[in-house]
């Protein structure tokens, strides 16, 4: 067992794609000592259970499975003497002076300090408590992600006749997965009038297997005492209230919940980082620095991504700037700019900029509030239009990325707004 150092250039909390990409980028940018702390028995994060393909096309220019992508990330950091990775080690708290407190079977209680800290804890699923379905609490109700772990890693099947509540990507992927395992997926129910998953997943996970998708429908009751034996479903009105008289029953022994992901931010809250009410993650600038100097964050802990490629990209930015800061190479002379999402744009990350005088290329990641067709995305600072882009289709499930070139950042005043122009 290797002795830990007291002080690292960078301590990274979480060894998923975000943490590993950040570590690699920090190393590329001159960091001399990087410690990655992961609570699971292996590195790679949630991707180890996402055995489907579709990852990596942007970042590695190759179509990979989840474990394949994780493997690539792990290859990037292994055998580098400047990067240490601890697995089976749970971070308990992070202090404002950048002391990270963790516990592991090998080391016991650990206290290490970073010149900078990067938070990459990922996200977790909303559970039944977060959505409140009436009925007893029979066995057979799982989150889709928990079911995914069972079926793909642990080797047991949660049930045979399945209904999925929520049409997020995990729910859609699991609909196909259970079908491939020989189970019958009776239906996918979605309370919104549109699906929250990627279109490709509707096509290849539902349509391919003739699984019906009921939009604007939800579960009003779960039946069964010891084990689920059916559900009652109803249509909902535009305020998402069940419409009396529209109820019908579906026979099933298992309900999978895919009702959204929330960034895993207990540690960030402990630090009193400024949080964003809609992303549920810390507010960050274009370098992924949080409201506390020296603390960075990237990946699903900042905002839920659907594309791990963007997670890696964002983490590389965080890793680079954390490394520069640890080496005292960051230009402190910057202009502060707020970034606000308005009219049709629900969220935008980063939520602020610290722009150097020479300007700097900035990439904005946005999600729209509702599905739209033929709208113009506008980025404005005061009266200056910084950028516009026509979007043939825009969906809440698909993140939009736009780049503001360095030369254009000169036109930015003290605030930036992004919005949709629907008259376009």
């Amino acid at each position, binding site marked *: 067992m290797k002795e830990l150092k007291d002080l690292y250039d960078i301590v990274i909390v979480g060894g998923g794609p975000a943490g590993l990409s950040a570590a690699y980028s920090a190393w590329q940018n001159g960091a001399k000592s990087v410690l990655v702390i992961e609570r699971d028995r292996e590195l790679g994060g949630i991707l180890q259970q996402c055995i489907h393909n579709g990852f990596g096309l942007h970042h590695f220019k190759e179509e990979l499975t989840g474990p394949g992508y994780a493997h690539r990330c792990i290859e990037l950091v292994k055998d580098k003497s400047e990067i240490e990775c601890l697995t089976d080690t749970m971070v308990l708290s992070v202090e404002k002076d950048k002391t990270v407190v963790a516990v592991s079977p090998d080391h016991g209680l650990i206290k290490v300090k970073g010149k900078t800290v990067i938070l990459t804890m990922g996200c977790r699923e909303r559970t039944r408590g977060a959505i409140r379905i009436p009925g007893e609490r029979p066995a057979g109700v799982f989150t889709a992600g928990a079911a995914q772990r069972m*079926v793909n890693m642990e080797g047991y099947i949660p049930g045979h006749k399945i209904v999925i509540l929520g049409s997020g990507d995990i729910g859609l992927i699991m609909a196909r997965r259970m079908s*491939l395992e*020989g189970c019958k997926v009776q239906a996918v129910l979605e309370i919104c009038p549109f699906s929250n998953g*990627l279109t490709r997943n509707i*096509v290849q996970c539902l349509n391919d297997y003739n699984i019906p998708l009921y939009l604007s429908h939800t579960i009003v009751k779960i039946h069964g005492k010891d084990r689920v034996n059916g559900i009652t479903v109803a249509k909902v009105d535009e305020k998402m209230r069940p419409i009396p008289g529209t109820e019908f029953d579906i026979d099933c022994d298992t309900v999978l919940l895919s009702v959204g992901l929330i960034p895993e931010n207990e540690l960030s809250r402990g630090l009193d980082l400024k949080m964003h009410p809609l992303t549920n993650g810390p507010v960050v600038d274009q370098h992924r620095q949080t409201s506390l100097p020296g603390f960075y964050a990237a990946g699903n802990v900042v905002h839920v991504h659907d594309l791990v490629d963007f997670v890696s990209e964002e983490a590389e930015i965080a890793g680079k700037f954390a490394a520069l800061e640890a080496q005292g190479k960051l230009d402190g002379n910057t202009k502060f700019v707020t970034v606000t999402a308005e009219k049709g744009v629900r969220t935008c990350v980063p939520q602020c900029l610290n722009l150097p005088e020479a300007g700097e290329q900035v990439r904005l990641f946005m999600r729209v509030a509702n599905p739209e067709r033929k709208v113009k995305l506008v980025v404005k600072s005061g009266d200056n239009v910084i950028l516009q882009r026509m979007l043939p289709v825009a969906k809440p499930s*698909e993140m939009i990325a736009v780049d503001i070139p360095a030369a254009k950042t000169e036109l930015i005043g003290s605030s930036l707004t992004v919005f949709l122009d629907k008259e376009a």
Partner: protein
Amino acid sequence: MSETRVMNCIMCPMGCEMTVTIDDGKVVDVKGNTCPRGAKYAHDEVTAPKRMLTTTVRVEGGMLPLLPVVSETVLPKEKVLDCAAYLRGVTVKAPVKTGDVIVEDILGLGVNIIASRDML
């Protein structure tokens, strides 16, 4: 008689919406695709739809009881369930390395099934 069909390319997460013109069972025009893979997909989808398969096989002596596997290339869509059912009956022994062939030429379709992770 030519007809048009609106379909989404599923080759990458962009999911481009394409308008496909079909004449006599053949694709004669594709609009809305961002890259050439979209046109290829539209052609296949109209003539002979194909899909990748990802599933698991049992593994003995590994750190986990299951090994994730992937088809090396696409399979005929209508054969995917048969292949998955076949793979449910397969057991391998650890250690396995990423890219190892788990089933050669599955069901005579000319496609290998390979391991998608190391299993020690």
